[in-house]
């Protein structure tokens, strides 16, 4: 039977105005969700007990004990029997590191969170677009959270000519080229979504062939994941410059997604027209929009103490959409929260390659 807190959170995700950052409701839901997870998730309860934390001792959502992303490699962190999972998303493993697994009793929360924030920050008022994917989709990568997300976005927001140009075998740059040419002829704006590594790979192919595009007005590109591990070193600034030059898309139509398998919600850096600009926007450090069912605290890397708002530290993310696993996730990423935005300062250098970028890299090696 679905717990009462699940219904409340689903309603909250579906109904709350995205600009509304009501601390009161969030705190109530977070407290209730923590109590639910403490009761149902035995491994998580064990972790809380190690830290001598119980629902009774929590006064603020910031105090809710977090699990590290590495914890997902070690045991199923679930509020239900793991074998009953409707889906299991795997993190990208490396040769030296195992994958983590995030078990979902239902994908309802994930889907609700994904559709709401994507529509708000990446589409604004557009209902359907021609979407081209340079990243995993659920048919070919059933255990990839990004795969689920891309497929879900295609089904919900993609028009009939939307297509995928990415498979475990190869990146179909000629196919994408043909599709982009066709869209240009029809003057149909396109939305290219892909991992940063796949986009880089594609741009290199187009560069070798001397191909550049001038995509119809309104076209946009979303990248996700890093490009560590790519053959050549490249800064974000250079990456975006290349995107603009290759596809003929203005800078404000370049979007970035920050997410991870251990979460159910995503953050978007978006400067699309009609998206409110942040006064403190730093040219090189994108600010990502945080949906109101998520909060972020920065913690001191050495002692894991919560830092005052505005200070840079390791990001601890509290995601209400993680209903049946663990809401509070301790990441390895550096940044700070600024009201409804998240400023990513960087992924901890020296940390293992992770995220969706590895997917493309693995394909490179296999080819």
């Amino acid at each position, binding site marked *: 039977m679905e717990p009462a807190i699940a219904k409340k959170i689903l309603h909250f995700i579906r109904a709350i105005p995205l600009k509304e950052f009501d601390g009161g409701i969030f705190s109530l839901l977070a407290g209730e969700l923590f109590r639910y997870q403490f009761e149902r998730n*035995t*491994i*998580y*309860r*064990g*972790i809380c*007990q*190690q830290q001598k934390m119980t629902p009774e001792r929590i006064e603020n959502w910031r105090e809710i004990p977090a*699990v*590290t*992303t*590495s*914890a997902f*490699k*070690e*045991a199923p*962190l679930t509020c239900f029997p793991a074998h009953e999972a409707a889906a299991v998303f795997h993190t990208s493993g490396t040769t*030296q*590191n*195992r994958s983590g697994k995030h078990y979902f009793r239902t994908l309802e929360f994930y889907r609700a969170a994904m559709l709401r924030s994507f529509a708000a920050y990446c589409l604004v008022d557009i209902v359907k677009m021609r979407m081209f994917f340079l990243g995993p989709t659920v048919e070919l990568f059933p255990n990839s959270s990004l795969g689920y997300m891309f497929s879900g976005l295609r089904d919900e927001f993609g028009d009939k000519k939307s297509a995928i140009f990415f498979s475990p075998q190869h990146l179909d740059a000629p196919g994408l080229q043909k599709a982009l040419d066709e869209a240009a002829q029809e003057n149909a704006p396109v939305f290219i979504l892909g991992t940063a590594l796949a986009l880089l790979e594609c741009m290199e192919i187009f560069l070798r062939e001397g191909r550049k595009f001038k995509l119809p007005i309104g076209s946009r590109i979303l990248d996700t994941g890093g490009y560590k591990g790519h053959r*050549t*070193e490249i800064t974000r600034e250079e990456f975006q410059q290349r995107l603009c030059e290759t596809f003929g898309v203005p800078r404000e139509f370049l979007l970035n997604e920050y997410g991870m398998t251990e979460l159910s919600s995503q953050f978007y850096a978006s400067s699309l027209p009609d998206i409110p600009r942040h006064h403190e926007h730093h040219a090189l450090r994108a600010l990502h929009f945080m949906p109101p069912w998520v909060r972020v605290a920065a913690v001191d*890397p*050495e*002692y*894991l103490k919560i830092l005052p708002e505005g200070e840079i*530290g*390791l990001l601890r993310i509290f995601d209400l959409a993680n209903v049946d696993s663990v809401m509070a996730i*301790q990441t*390895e990423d*550096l940044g700070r929260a600024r009201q409804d935005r998240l400023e990513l300062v960087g992924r*901890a*250098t*020296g*940390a293992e390659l992770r995220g969706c970028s590895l997917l493309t890299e693995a394909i490179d090696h296999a080819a």
Partner: protein
Amino acid sequence: MLRDFFIPNGFAEPLTQTRQHESYAQSGVIYASAQLSAEWLAEFATKFRQPAFGFREGSKDWQARAIKAWCQVAREWQKIKFPGAKTILAALAAATGLSQKMLKEALYNHFRVFTEEVLNSWLREVKCDRDRHAEQKMRYPALAFLVSAGNIPGVAIHPLVHLSVLGIPALVKNSSLEPFLLPAILTTLAKHDPTVASRLAALTWSRSNSDLTQTVMEYNPAVIAFGDDGTIEKFAQRKKHFADFGDRFSLTIVNPHRENLRVRQMAYDICMFEQMGCLSPQAIILLTADWKKVEEFCARLAKAMAKMSAILPIGKRTAAQHALIQQWRGALAVRSAAGEKIILLTSAGTAWTVAAAEHFDPNERVAYRFARVWPVASIKDLITIVERYKNKLQILLWGNSGRELEKFFASSELGAAFDNLFFNFAGLAQAPSCGWLDEVNPRWRRLTRGLRLKTTIQ
């Protein structure tokens, strides 16, 4: 001023630029950086490459001269007492994040073995091996290209000294992470004997500058590469004269039921170089089935780690390094919550960690003073572990007395499991003998003997 290059006398120097090192500690180390071009490097390599002395006629004079010069360098560098020592230590600390105390200890360990007696003895052994395999002899290379790594300062010193004694012209590619040490050492060598130094050079460029690397490769050098898998892979295509010191790790074995445990030494091995090198133990294998003994051992080790951290302080850790430690600890916390037997003892912050579990995978690496204690119930279990990781093992360290080691080797259960594995005592992992590279790397051994690659030396 510090420099990221050393060019022997008589060669055209490259253009230089004053730069600020993008170091860990953001301490603003200023140095002269060579602005290298492929053209300049080609011109340099053409002149620098020349027949090695090896053991050909007239080589004895060279060898004696080189040994004498290196021993003079070693005396100065062991004590770090020479003009500019403070500057180089500060720069190394800034570039690597290691504390100056640890760097002093590391330099002492690197250089203490270079005495005339030791180097002559090594040379005799090399000659003896070479003569024993006369049918497989080949000419020593006219150029060695030594690709150094940035995480362990001075990692290239031992091979460089050996190449120098054999009179093989050696060009070191410094890691751009730590470009100062070898040029400074070679400057000291040139001060004592410019002729010996004339066959050595150190230059710095980043791994992404493949044009420069390719330029050197065109001179068909023997390649000796330190570094991560990415670095090694780039050179692994070379079938001839290639010795890699890539991704390896070490393990410590200790029987807690015996007296005289070398606990302090085990802590030393882990703390040195922040556990980042191939000689750093990734786990301490405890020969016991008794969890109580594991608890006792961990408590003792934790005390030793705390003391060692005061003796060899941590330098500067980045947020990324703290984050990794927190993630490793977090993984163990969840294993404990899931019902596994886990011991987790930590400093208040991230200074050190002692963790015990019934299973670890050393392929999942840790660093930054993260001691993993892995109890095994029997010799059979130990053999299973050693066999599983044999191709990644650099050395095995013994945490009990020499007498106990003899008993261990005498055990009939061992069979051939430990054949060809290099043993040392705990506490000596980071202070290896002069010939340790020969022991752990057959390809390097063949290279120093000037033997064809397929030769097997027993």
